[in-house]
């Protein structure tokens, strides 16, 4: 699987530092899976998908590589290896989606696939209202959306996990699906344990091969690229997993 060139068909500015690139082509992928995006003479880095048909990536400008991606225009090419890894799989009928910052992107894909799920709630967290994106996209996929910002500039004030905690106390959910910064995922894991419900957490790591060979992304014996990036958290086994 060599990198496959794909042209950019559309670029949408989603938030202050966030652009969505819709490509002219598709993949067959699950929500939560990722692709390696290569720009010749620049770098190759992992990105989760927002849609597989057409292939859509949402990229926050956070470093030199994403800055280069943000310079691309409609008609330019980028190169894709993937889909890679293990994605989300909604098991129940009452999922709680929790997205912190740019972690909202794969959850939008997940929500768009979970059309048969009766009641889904999405907590969308961002630093400020200018960093918020995909509230409308999630609502359009049938989610009840709760917005939360750290500076109280939109929706509720605080962290997305604070809101998730309150929701889990008030309502019944049969699974938590989370993507975001590490501290947020740790909190989400804790909440799953407390409430005795399964979780699926999408993690990040420095990646090289993306196919479970080089070991660059390993964490506690698990390969983020191949065993993940979405990891199951079962109520019974969560404790033993953390000890291994």
């Amino acid at each position, binding site marked *: 699987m*060599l990198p496959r*060139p794909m042209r950019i068909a559309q670029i949408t500015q989603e938030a202050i530092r966030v652009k969505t690139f819709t490509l002219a082509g598709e993949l067959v992928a699950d929500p939560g899976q990722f692709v390696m995006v*290569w720009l*010749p003479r620049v770098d190759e880095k992992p990105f989760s998908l927002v849609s597989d048909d057409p292939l859509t990536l949402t990229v926050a400008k956070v470093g030199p590589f994403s800055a280069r991606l943000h310079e691309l225009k409609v008609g330019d090419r980028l*190169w894709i290896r993937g889909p890679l890894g293990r994605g989300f799989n909604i098991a129940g009928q009452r999922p709680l989606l929790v997205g912190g910052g740019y972690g909202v992107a794969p959850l939008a894909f997940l929500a768009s696939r979970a059309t048969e799920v009766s009641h889904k709630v999405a907590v969308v967290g961002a630093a400020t209202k200018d960093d918020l994106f995909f509230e409308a996209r999630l609502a359009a996929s049938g989610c009840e959306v709760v917005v939360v910002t750290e500076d109280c500039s939109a929706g509720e004030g605080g962290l997305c996990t604070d809101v998730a905690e309150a929701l889990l106390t008030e309502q019944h959910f049969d699974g938590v699906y989370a993507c975001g910064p590490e501290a947020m995922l740790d909190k989400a894991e804790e909440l799953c344990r407390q409430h005795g419900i399964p979780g699926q957490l999408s993690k990040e790591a420095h990646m090289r091969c993306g196919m479970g060979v080089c070991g660059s992304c390993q964490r506690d*014996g698990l390969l983020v690229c191949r065993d993940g990036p979405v990891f199951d958290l079962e109520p019974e086994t969560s404790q033993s997993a953390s000890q291994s």
Partner: protein
Amino acid sequence: MRLRNPLVLAAGILGTGAQLLARVAENGAGMVTTKSCGPSPREGHPNPTVLDWGHGLINAVGLANPGVDEGVKIIARAKEILEPLGLPLAASIFAETVKGFAQVARKIADAQPDFIELNISCPNVSHEFGRPFACDAGDAARVTGAVKEVTSIPIIVKLSPNVTDIALIARSVEQAGADAIAAINTLGPGMIIDIYSGQPVLANRVGGVSGPAIRPVAVRCVYDIYEAVEIPIIGIGGVGDGRDALEMVMAGATAVGVGSAVRYGGLEVFQTILEEMRAFMVEEGHTNLNQLRGIAHR
């Protein structure tokens, strides 16, 4: 030293952490090799570093490693887990100079690996390190001898296929005191060019070729080495199933390395290869792998 089975996790594959090594062991490997560790931390080459080009892999990770001071801790932790299971561990090391090899070996010996494997054959760092030591019989022997002087831990020397006469190099390192030979490291280096951008895909432009495509070369190398030396050979290169592993044994390998096959078969590949080997032995009425070793020479 006895292995519970002949399969060895090859260096550079998954050997980055103690728990990951333990997981490979749980999945059936008879021995594991850690990712090559050098004198100081190295970032390695920028991405893309590893590609599946359709008939194998090509990589230029560039000896990314945390340095020997951290490496020795990883190995010590891995030993803690593997020792009770009776599973040996080989610590792969590299350095830019003969002296550097001896220094890294001395430090890594503190973690008491069962073997120290000398990676004198990485094809991806020649612009920094010059021609690999494995490409010259004298250089290869000097590194082997220097490491033998500083440690009593058995030494495996990993050879390069990118030479005119691998048997000559093998004999040279055996005379210098090598306890075993691992062959082969990746082939090449090779290059893959993206025809849309006109650019080499690997950021390093060139990389070592591994996987199914190189197996016939690996088998021939093991065959040539077996003719030349008495010490055991770990046959490595494109082994993906039981047939391939048996082929290595018949060429003369005592143990068989598994690396790129993890890309295709996951960690379960070790169990699968063992089962296929056993099934063949039963079917063909063989009772001992030793009886098959080197039969291609007879």
